[in-house]
Structures are given as C-alpha cells and as structure tokens.
C-alpha cells in the first residue's frame, strides 16, 4: 500500500469519526451551549474532510462562514436568551417523534450501505484543482449571474433579520406579546 493512501485513510477515518461524534453531540446534548460546541467541532471536521478532497477554497470558506459567522451567531443568541434557551422537555408526544427520528436513522444507514460501494475510476488530480484561482474562474465566468444573485439574497437576509429581530420599544408587552397600547400594528 503506498504511503499516500495510508495518509488518506487515516485522515478520512479521523475526520469522519469526529464528524459523526460531534453531529451526535449537536443533536443529543441538553445544554444548548454544548450543542453549539458540537456544531463548532462538526464544521471544523468537515473542513478537514474538504482538505482531504483537495477543496482548498471551500475549506477557507467553510472556516470563515461557518466557524466565524454561523456558530458565533448561534452562541450570541444562546447567550442572549440565557437559561431560557434550554427548553424544558416533557414526555408527551415523545413516542411518535422517536419513531420518526428512528426511521430517519434507519433510512440513512440503509442508503449508506447502498452507496458505500460507489467506486469510480479515480481521475488524476489535475494541478490547480480546487484552488482559489480555478474556483474563482468558474465563479466569475459561468456562475457570474448566480454569484450576483447571492449578494442580493444576503442583502435581503440582512435587512430581513434586522426587521424581524428589532425590538419594538414600548409597543409590545413583554408578557403577553399583545401591543401595549391596545392597538394592533
């Protein structure tokens, strides 16, 4: 076995194990800050898997956008909500939800057993695959219009998030959610 494939095997095994374990932690933990830490480790391990697929540009994007923005946003909201972010659970309706979740896991494992033998002839990794230059050429060539649409989407998301999260000082009663002055906006 050539050393390169051993390296690949070790890298894939390590990052795959960390990704599965941290995904389980993200879903199972009770305290939301631990879920957020699970998500943090998960996106880091996926960045490692992207490197093993020689997707250098997307590794950087994954680290900047997910680790730098999305997870931090989750942590901000958890801090803002404080203890209330840990929703109390009750047993009512737990069985149907458990059946649904179990069915999803069973379907996922079945699909995994189906696709695990996919074995295409490996193409040689051409020099420049996945680098910022080669992805950027596609991004500003064939994908130019969607790229500009993404900027419109992000602007709309910023404005929408601001409009939704903005607190209406004195207009909404904090206890009931009804407008404090009796009028409906």
């Amino acid at each position, binding site marked *: 076995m050539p050393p390169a494939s051993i390296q690949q095997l070790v890298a894939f095994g390590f990052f795959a194990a960390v990704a599965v374990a941290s995904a389980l932690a993200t*879903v199972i933990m009770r305290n939301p800050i631990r879920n957020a830490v699970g998500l943090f480790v998960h996106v880091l391990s996926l960045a490692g898997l992207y490197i093993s697929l020689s997707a250098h540009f997307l590794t950087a994007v994954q680290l900047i956008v997910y680790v730098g923005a999305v997870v931090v946003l989750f942590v901000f909201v958890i801090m803002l909500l404080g203890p209330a972010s840990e929703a109390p659970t009750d047993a009512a309706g737990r069985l149907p939800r458990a059946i649904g979740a179990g069915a999803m896991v069973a379907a*996922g494992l079945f699909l995994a057993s189906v696709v695990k033998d996919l074995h295409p002839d490996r193409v040689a990794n051409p020099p420049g695959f996945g680098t910022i230059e080669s992805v950027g050429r596609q991004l500003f060539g064939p994908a130019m219009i969607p790229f500009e649409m993404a900027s419109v989407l992000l602007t709309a998301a910023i404005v929408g998030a601001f409009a939704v999260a903005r607190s209406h000082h004195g207009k909404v009663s904090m206890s009931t959610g009804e407008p404090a002055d009796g009028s409906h906006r």
Partner: protein
Amino acid sequence: MIIHLGHYMALSCVLFSIGAAGFLFRRNVLISLMSIELMMNAVNLTFIAANRWQSAVPSADGTAAPVIPHDGHIFTFFVIAVAAAEAAVGLAIVLAFYRLRKTVRTDAADMLRG
C-alpha cells in the same frame, strides 16, 4: 483500503440522517436550526466528494487543455451562502418568537392555529 467516493457518500448519508433525526426529535428551536445546518453540511460533502471524482471534459474545439469541472464546488459555495442567510433570518425569528412567548419550544409556536 483506498478511500473512494462511496465512503464519503456513506458518511454523508449518516450525517444527514443524524441531522434529520435531530430536527424531528428535538423541540428546541435552536437545536432544530443546528440540525438544519448539519443536513446542509452533509449535502455539501456529497457535492465536493462527487466533484473530486468528476472527470475533466474536453474543451469545445478539442485543441485547448481540458476544462477541470468545479460544478460541485460552485454549488457548495452557494449552499453555504444560502445557509448563512438562513441562519441569520432563522435566529432573528427565534429572538422574535422568544420575545412573544418567553420560550424556545417549537410546539409553543401555535399563534396561527385556527
């Protein structure tokens, strides 16, 4: 044992099903949003893995160097952009919902119930 496309696809199936199960089972809005992020990340992994084993296409006139396809990378880039927008709007909705109901339980969101 050589790592191939199938291994990445199987891992991605497992990660997606963990995210979907979490979305179905947990009642905390924050954890539902995190489960959506898990599912999007699993899909991104399939895109990048499939792109890794995508063969190069010859250029149109057959003389220049073959074009290296980066379709999966481009798709993943846009999925990440949409996921970031979704996280921002989703967490803003969580804050507005908490301001109304003082809880983050998903089954407390019954304001539109007739």
